[in-house]
């Protein structure tokens, strides 16, 4: 962490709870309100895999953004969220858009602190850069997930075909 981050990091840590809940609400806004109510309310991860995965994920990402966790750990959390988005009929932009939300939340929450020319502005730019890095990584994860879905489909079809050919003695089993 660069020295200039220090004030922003302190701010993020102080406001962690608030930021988490605001960011969670931002993600929930992608769902219809009837769904969001359930994703917000049910705390048992088994009964609410979407909500719990999302909340654990953004919480982990915040740890990284406030320099309490490694980038590797952050990518694991990001992967968990994006793999869910990848099977939810979303466009790539819709799958990663929640990440932009945290910039807006921090900017608005920090009020005057993070405006251009103010002392915290350089801190914010570094923070925003880390978010941008996550957005790019999220696009990669999204693509990998989509490719895997198609691959699973191909594998399933090929496996049936292989078995049929084997039954017909048209190919030699390995």
């Amino acid at each position, binding site marked *: 962490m660069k020295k200039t981050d220090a004030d922003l990091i302190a701010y993020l840590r102080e406001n962690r709870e608030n930021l988490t809940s605001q960011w969670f609400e931002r993600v929930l*806004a*992608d*769902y*219809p*309100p*009837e*769904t969001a109510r*359930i*994703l917000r309310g*049910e705390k*048992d*991860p*088994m*009964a*609410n*895999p*979407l909500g719990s*995965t999302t909340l654990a994920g953004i919480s982990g990402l915040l740890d990284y953004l406030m320099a309490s966790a490694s980038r590797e750990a952050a990518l694991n959390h990001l992967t968990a969220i994006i*793999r*869910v988005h990848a*099977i*939810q*009929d979303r466009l790539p932009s*819709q799958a990663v*858009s*929640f990440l*932009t*939300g945290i910039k807006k939340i921090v900017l608005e929450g920090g009020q005057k602190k993070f405006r251009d020319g103010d002392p915290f502005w350089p801190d914010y730019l570094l923070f925003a850069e880390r978010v941008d890095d996550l957005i790019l990584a999220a696009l990669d994860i999204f693509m990998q*997930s989509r490719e*895997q*879905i*198609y691959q*699973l*489909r191909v*594998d*399933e*079809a090929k*496996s*049936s075909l292989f*078995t049929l050919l084997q*039954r*017909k003695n048209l190919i030699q089993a390995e």
Partner: protein
Amino acid sequence: MKIDKKPAEMIKIDYCPSGKNWMDPLVEFKKGNYLYPSKPDSMDALGIPNPRKWSPEDDDWQLPENWQEIIFEGLRDRLDRYRSLKIFMDCCVRCGACADKCHFFLGSGDPKNMPFLRAELLRSIYRREFTKAGKILGKLAGGRDLTPAVVKEWFYYFFQCSECRRCSVFCPFGIDTAEITMVARELLALLGITIEWITGPASNCFKVGNHVGIKPHAFVDSVDMLVDDIETLTGIRVEPTFNRKGAEVLFITPSGDFFAEPGIYTFMGYLMLFHQIGLDYTFSTYASEGGNFGLFLNHDVMKGLNAKMYAEAKRLGVKWILGGECGHMWRVVNQYMDTMNGPADFLEVPVSPITGTRFENARSTKMVHITEFTADLIKHDKLVLDPRRNDNYKVTFHDSCNPARAMGLFEEPRYILNHVCNNFHEMPENTIREKTFCCGSGSGLNADEFMETRLRGGMPRANAVKYVKDKHGVNLLSCICALDRAAFPPLMHYWVPGVEVSGLHELVANALVMDGEKERTENLRGESIENGEGGE
């Protein structure tokens, strides 16, 4: 060029989906979110009307001219015949107890996958046409007009219900939402709207004997290949028979068990077990299928496919039927067989020839579940088992929906698991037994073109598997349903890599010490046994 917006306004992004009212029936079909429609050939074979080539992406679905009349008549007929349907249409108070219990809702977040709301898609039409309030007040009374968009919406959502009945467990009125889906699918089929993954297998089953369309000689060849594999593994040549009249028991299992991995290992397990205990049994090449895709289409086809099993039992003159690790076969047998085709008076109440146990629970259907049979063998010390041969597995158990919720079969599989392996870990309580989460591919949804939706529906189950993998290092998901064994491998690859899938009798056979066997150094998959009897 004049720009009259500020930069901040220009980049304003609206991430939220439009807040649609549930009564709006518009759905968008694109590849990955629908199953391929039935081919005319398989529809003809099953007597499904309006055979044609069409796609859900078409604007015009080529419905019959009097399609509304067909739906209303079809619904009226079913309301008259099934008192339960009438009650299910009237008594839901939308309390919301089922709202968050559906795996497709939990994976997609789509409110119309809340079971009560999915059912409301049909109920609203019922109200509009069949209730006074709906006829007069229309939308105000929760009624909707039947339009082509409603039909499309039915196709979209009633093929995202896997008829698993988890929601029914939580309904204070006991509404069986799966039966609402069944009726909705029947109504759609009256218009010629159904899917090839259901009608193809069902048609195969009538014509050839099983869903995958393996002809009798190829079925025998398939089993022979597995017999060879067993001999390589154990040094023992098992000798199954086919269509042998006068055998004591007819054994019927889903075709998935002799068609592809990992089901074939379960099938090998059956053969090894029966050989070891000297069971007098035979296969039927015509009833070479336990599954019943008719359940997912209409009651006529379901009845016909179920009758085929009993017709073969009669023809072969067996005393009773033993059924393999299948899911929905058991739902049909336990819930519908008796009133459709039963009672099977020409058969005897099943008695285990090895232990003498009389299976009173099967006195009407005359059909015993393989885990009941095997658990009874173990209970009476009739098997020598070495659970260490499964020590390379850390096992969890998925209660397959139909044996769990249609039979209450909870203890027998666990009793067996606890005797054949040393590392068995349960998933969390609200994801097992009667609250088990579906694989997301049941009821004919396990076609490859539907992979994305299947991964969505299977997410809650995978989430629970991930929990035991993280906590206990679980690496094997065992189950007692052939559809599960087909559906889980891709689901695990996507959500919980490192977890393999097996049937229960694969593990039984790994542990089974057979008379005259050579030293077992490998399990049925050819993997080295780390702590097997070689270590003694």
